[in-house]
């Protein structure tokens, strides 16, 4: 029974997406409650799977019982289950928030469609994590990008259309690059199953180095585009800032991370450490990560739209994760994984709190945040916690990420990276602190001096508080998570 859970998870999401149109006319709350139920079911089954994987070890699932040479195979190991659990948990929180705030700019008749897209998005993300097949990954990636672009353009505003178009163009180039890489690998090995391809690549490395080298180049670039690694970040700020707040949170906190996880899978499971080091991909990754960490922050400093600022901040934070990958060591990978978690939490908290401000006060400009802390204390406290995490203040997850990354950099003998880490942290302070200061310490026109909990729906407040609490809780006790992540990193090799 447990071995059937992965496919049940996938089908639950897909089925939910298909059912929503039937409910649409009757009741909106029925739809959301049912969706929440489905999410919780998948959450529980993910926990069961995690327990199973840790105690009994990884297992394979052949779709339709086809042989792995021909058919699609799912691989359920610590890596895939842990991250699917992360995705589902974070999405549950954001989902609850979105039931209060799906309204931001979305027409009422679109609610149902929004949730359809959300569940297809979840289906694709889980599929990407579970699948053990390169071509299947491509298909899921395309499902993911088409749902993403639909979510971006759901608001029916002109900036949404341009942002969506920009996204779709660049991402399609990325997908095709990835597919080209798959084709090159298929040419040598004759398979698309990751493990079989990996065997073929290892034995074919001396025979066809040119093919493999080109394949690495195209695949890394292709996924780099989708993961918004620095020079390809150009689509991200517009796309993430124009989307409705709750989906900005999902896009920034989860979707981008999924692409990074694909990259990790490809680098470490398909090619293996020896080959990627032989072609100096780590150097490329470290260089673009470092530039991205600095440049992303500098662009973020200059933004006046708070959501665009958060988008650029994501660019910088993706740099941290890529840096961890680029160290090509167990510690580096563990640090990258941890930062995926911690950035997921922090960025979700930031987008949701800013979303609450936009919802309640209709303010998007950074310069208009004066005194917001008195009017919306909960949202701005959560914002502050997450922003301090971004700077790397102890007691938040950001500090642990920074510590882990720094130690991994020392372990890899790259002291320069620590300097980059510190400079980037300081630049983060340069754009997050003024917002916090003006929110809590400056007076606004209303002259409201006494803090009063803002009047926004409870479904928006509770997720915010939960996220803030999680940031501090994991920042205080990261030990358990880190050991799980170590197991996940081990399961890649």
């Amino acid at each position, binding site marked *: 029974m447990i071995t059937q859970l992965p496919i049940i998870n996938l089908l639950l999401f897909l089925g939910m997406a298909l059912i929503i149109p039937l409910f649409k006319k009757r009741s909106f709350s029925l739809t959301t409650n049912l969706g929440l139920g489905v999410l919780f079911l998948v959450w529980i089954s993910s926990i069961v799977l995690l327990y199973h994987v840790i105690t009994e070890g990884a297992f394979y699932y052949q779709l339709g019982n086809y042989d792995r040479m021909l058919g699609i195979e799912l691989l359920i190991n610590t890596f895939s289950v842990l991250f699917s659990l992360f995705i589902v948990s974070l999405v549950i929180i954001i989902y609850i928030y979105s039931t209060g705030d799906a309204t931001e700019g979305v027409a009422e008749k679109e609610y149902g469609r929004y949730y359809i897209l959300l569940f297809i998005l979840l289906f694709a993300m889980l599929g990407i994590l579970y699948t053990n097949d390169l071509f299947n990954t491509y298909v899921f990636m395309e499902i993911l990008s088409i749902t993403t672009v639909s979510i971006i353009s759901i608001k029916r505003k002109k900036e949404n259309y341009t942002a969506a178009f920009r996204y*779709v163009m660049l991402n399609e*180039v990325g997908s095709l690059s990835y597919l080209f890489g798959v084709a090159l690998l298929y040419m040598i090995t004759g398979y698309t199953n990751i493990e079989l391809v990996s065997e073929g690549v290892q034995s074919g490395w001396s025979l066809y180095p040119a093919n493999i080298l080109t394949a690495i180049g195209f695949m890394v670039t292709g996924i780099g585009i989708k993961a918004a690694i620095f020079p390809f970040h150009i689509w991200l700020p517009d796309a993430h800032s124009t989307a409705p707040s709750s989906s900005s949170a999902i896009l920034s906190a989860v979707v981008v991370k999924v692409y990074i996880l694909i990259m990790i899978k490809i680098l470490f499971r398909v090619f293996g450490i020896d080959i990627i080091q032989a072609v100096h991909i780590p150097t490329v990754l470290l260089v673009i990560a470092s530039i991205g960490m600095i440049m992303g922050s500098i662009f973020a400093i200059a933004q006046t739209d708070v959501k665009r600022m958060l988008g650029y901040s994501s660019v910088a934070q993706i740099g941290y994760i890529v840096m961890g990958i680029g160290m090509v060591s167990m510690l580096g990978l563990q640090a990258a994984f941890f930062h995926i978690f911690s950035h997921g939490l922090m960025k979700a908290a930031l987008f949701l709190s800013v979303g609450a401000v936009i919802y309640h006060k209709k303010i998007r400009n950074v310069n208009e945040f004066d005194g917001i802390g008195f009017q919306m204390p909960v949202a701005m406290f959560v914002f502050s916690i997450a922003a301090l995490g971004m700077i790397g203040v102890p007691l938040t997850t950001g500090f642990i990420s920074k510590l882990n990354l720094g130690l991994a950099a020392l372990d890899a003998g790259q002291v320069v990276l620590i300097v980059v880490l510190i400079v980037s942290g300081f630049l983060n302070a340069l754009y997050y602190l003024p917002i916090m200061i003006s929110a809590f310490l400056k007076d606004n026109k209303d002259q409201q001096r006494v803090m009063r909990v803002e009047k926004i729906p409870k479904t928006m407040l509770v997720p915010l508080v939960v996220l803030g609490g999680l940031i501090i809780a994991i920042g205080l006790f990261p030990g358990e998570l880190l050991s799980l992540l170590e197991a996940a990193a081990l399961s890649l090799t």
Partner: protein
Amino acid sequence: MSFLDALIDHINYIGAMALFVIGLHTVVTHSNLIKRIMGINIMGTAVFLFFVAIGNVTGGVPPIIDQTNPDAVYINPLPSVLILTGIVVVVSITVYSLSLVIRIYETHGTIDQEEIAKMTSEDRDQ
């Protein structure tokens, strides 16, 4: 001579690469959104051609089991199957982007990227 042989042997790969570069060139140089979509499609075709060409076996017959000829060498059917899926994906993306172009034309009154960029930056300055 050997160079020419190699050229002829790999003509499908070379053709695919050429198509890829043509498509990319279209995307890079044109600011008309429709033309950019066309560029993407050309790139897609290049990758599909490449993929299908891998599956080719010299002297192979289409992979339809022929009872009368048990020694027949079939070409690899799997790439073709995969590419069928790929084509569906690219078509859907194309359709979506074309519909976006329609929307952009409705809201901006133009489908030229330069002009749209100019309009957006003016919007932001205000």
